[in-house]
């Protein structure tokens, strides 16, 4: 298969970029894979790109580049195809609309995969016939605004499949967007096996990692750890990451007198060596669209104590087997689960080993195989449709025609030109 990913900016740093590079690397072992980056602002990507994966860009924003596009008048006018309700709308312009359209009209691939809602809308509307159209959702439907959901409802019927990172989000897509004829499938993000030995559970450290943002609720974790320290002052907590909450967390740590026990470590990359220094991982978020750090910690042999927040943690952790799930926003419950693992060396080590085994299902090889199966299925179905298409209006064609009509109606209501 020839598989083409469409990504916002492959040269930046972020979860979507990392997971796309991981998936592309594994798929490239058996397929022809390219990543097309809408924007390019630096010469080389931050994350390691597999040698067999081709990378190119559509709009060049490097000011010192001979092909710099930032001065193009079409780059100054707002986008019309990329949905205005999408979070990245500000970075999309008439020029990106045009370049993406050209790319999708001429695309040689068997499968094109969009990596965010706005790009999925482009793919739905502009990809030439005969190419499988896949839209990935890396966040969740619930976190999108009403306006964006409306835009997706208008365009997504022309996709062949939407993939989400959790079953819960797939269910939300099926229930709320009602996309007839569009396959909705949950395929988790992949995390490669770490390049170092797993943790042995002997260190007296709890480790957390993520942006120091409100949604991560590290204040709850710090308060929980005050309860842990009251019982087990020999255990300590490291929180990796940077962000706007840093000063508030620092103040909370000092207020609770935890400066000998809770440490704000700053950002670390790669994270694997930091997980391996701990014996338990903690996630206190109020929302995790997937829960990449949970899988990373488990792949390093750590049992994870996580909040049972929407959507990821509950689908990754088997409570009491390879980690613990606790209610959101409850420091005492989190402290209780941490102390349970701290006070029981055997259980901690057993759950750590179980986590290591269970997390293997997120290996890039296993995740890529699920994508391969999905693509293979849909391509076979498409070929079948094409054979019958001359004589019969197949179910798929009928449905896609119906959605296109509905789509046009929705677009007309919004006063937007359809592609």
């Amino acid at each position: 298969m020839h598989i083409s990913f469409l990504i916002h900016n492959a040269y930046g740093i972020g979860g979507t970029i990392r997971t796309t590079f991981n998936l592309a690397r594994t798929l490239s072992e058996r397929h022809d894979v390219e990543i097309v980056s809408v924007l390019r602002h630096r010469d080389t990507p931050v994350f390691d790109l597999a040698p067999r994966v081709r990378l190119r860009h559509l709009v060049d924003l490097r000011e010192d580049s001979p092909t710099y596009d930032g001065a193009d008048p079409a780059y100054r006018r707002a986008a019309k195809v990329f949905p205005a309700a999408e979070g990245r709308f500000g970075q999309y312009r008439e020029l990106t609309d045009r370049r993406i359209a050209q790319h999708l009209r001429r695309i040689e691939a068997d499968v094109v995969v969009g990596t965010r809602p706005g790009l999925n809308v482009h793919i739905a509307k502009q990809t030439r016939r005969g190419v499988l159209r896949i839209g990935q959702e890396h966040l969740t439907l619930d976190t999108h605004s009403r306006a964006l959901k409306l835009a997706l409802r208008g365009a997504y019927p022309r996709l062949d499949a939407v993939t989400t990172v959790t079953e819960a989000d797939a269910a939300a897509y099926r229930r709320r967007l009602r996309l007839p004829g569009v396959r909705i499938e949950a395929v988790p993000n992949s995390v490669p096996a770490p390049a170092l030995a797993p943790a042995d559970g002997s260190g007296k450290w709890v480790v957390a990692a993520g942006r120091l943002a409100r949604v991560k609720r590290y204040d709850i974790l710090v308060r929980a750890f005050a309860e842990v320290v009251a019982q087990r002052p020999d255990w300590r907590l490291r929180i990796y990451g940077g962000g706007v909450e840093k000063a508030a967390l620092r103040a909370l740590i000092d207020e609770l007198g935890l400066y000998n026990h809770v440490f704000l470590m700053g950002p670390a990359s790669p994270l694997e060596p930091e997980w391996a220094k701990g014996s338990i991982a903690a996630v206190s978020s109020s929302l995790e669209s997937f829960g990449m750090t949970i899988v990373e910690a488990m792949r390093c042999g750590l049992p994870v104590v996580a909040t049972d927040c929407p959507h990821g943690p509950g689908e990754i952790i088997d409570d009491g087997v390879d980690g613990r799930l606790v209610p959101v926003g409850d420091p005492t419950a989190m402290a209780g689960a941490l102390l349970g693992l701290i006070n029981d060396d055997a259980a901690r080590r057993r759950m750590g080993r179980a986590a290591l085994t269970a997390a293997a299902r997120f290996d890039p090889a296993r995740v890529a195989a699920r994508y391969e199966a999905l693509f293979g299925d849909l391509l076979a179905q498409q070929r079948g449709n094409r054979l019958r298409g001359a004589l019969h209006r197949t179910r798929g064609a009928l449905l896609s025609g119906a959605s296109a009509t509905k789509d046009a109606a929705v677009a007309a209501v919004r006063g937007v030109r359809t592609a």
Partner: protein
Amino acid sequence: MNTPTQAPAAGSDDAAADAHGAARTTEETADDLKADCIADSAGGLTFDLNAPQGAHTTWSAALVLRRRGDAADEEVRLPLGPNGAGRLRAVLPSTVALDEGRWNVYADLGDGRAPRRLLPGVNDLRSLVDRRPLAGIGRLGVRIPYATKLGNMVLRSWLRGPHAEAGDLLVQPDGMTVSGRLYGAAPGPGAQAEARARHAPEDGGPRATVTVPLTVEGAAFSFTLPYAEPAGHWRRGTEPWDLWLRPAEGARPVRIARLLDDVHDKKQVFTYPAMPVSAAAGEVRVGPYYTLDNDLALRVAGPAGADGGAGA
């Protein structure tokens, strides 16, 4: 050997030293050499790297450590030999003394080309995290590899004997209690902790020193330093005090530092509250902090916090 207490200006240190070291852009290329580094609990380091394709390493291949700063051309070469298919390995044993400072890391493949700056791969430093050597150790060597802001590999090295390792600090409204462990010296009668003003007073008098008795139990020590006296010496701005330990009466003083873990730069990670203290010259804020060399110090800062976190 004790370290200078004057550290370079905060912040500029990595960037400037990188520019001074090897010229390289921030962009990585396929030609980059990345080294994975594993630490053992005795302080030894093992470096593993992928042999560059098509490179023929020779008997003279070496991992080259060059100390930064004006100690011109101080260099340590470690044999770099094959280690399985396409891999090269060099070892820095704990027994090889490395002068205190920051060391840039290069690979000389023995191919006639200039040594190439190494980038960090995976640094597995778990055995350093709660490092606790035997107290009788004569001279303590600590080496922590890390990445500079530009992504180059650097080894931070300390070499101390005796050494006073700071552990938990307890900050109270009127002073702080430091507990720690002494290496390479046995505490005796007259053991004390000393806080020394880093700057001399403007009237040209001697630098102030505040001493407090040391409580010892085996190798473990603790002392309580009341804030009143350092606060009383305050005149203006931010005045740092460096903390020393004298193991016994007449013994050579030892700098108190926190070195025995995997954190190369303690200053941002190990931070402590500053307490308001009334002094003759007004209200000041007093609190402990770690210098850029991970030595323990006390900061007495004036009101308005005009230069808030200053002091190395």
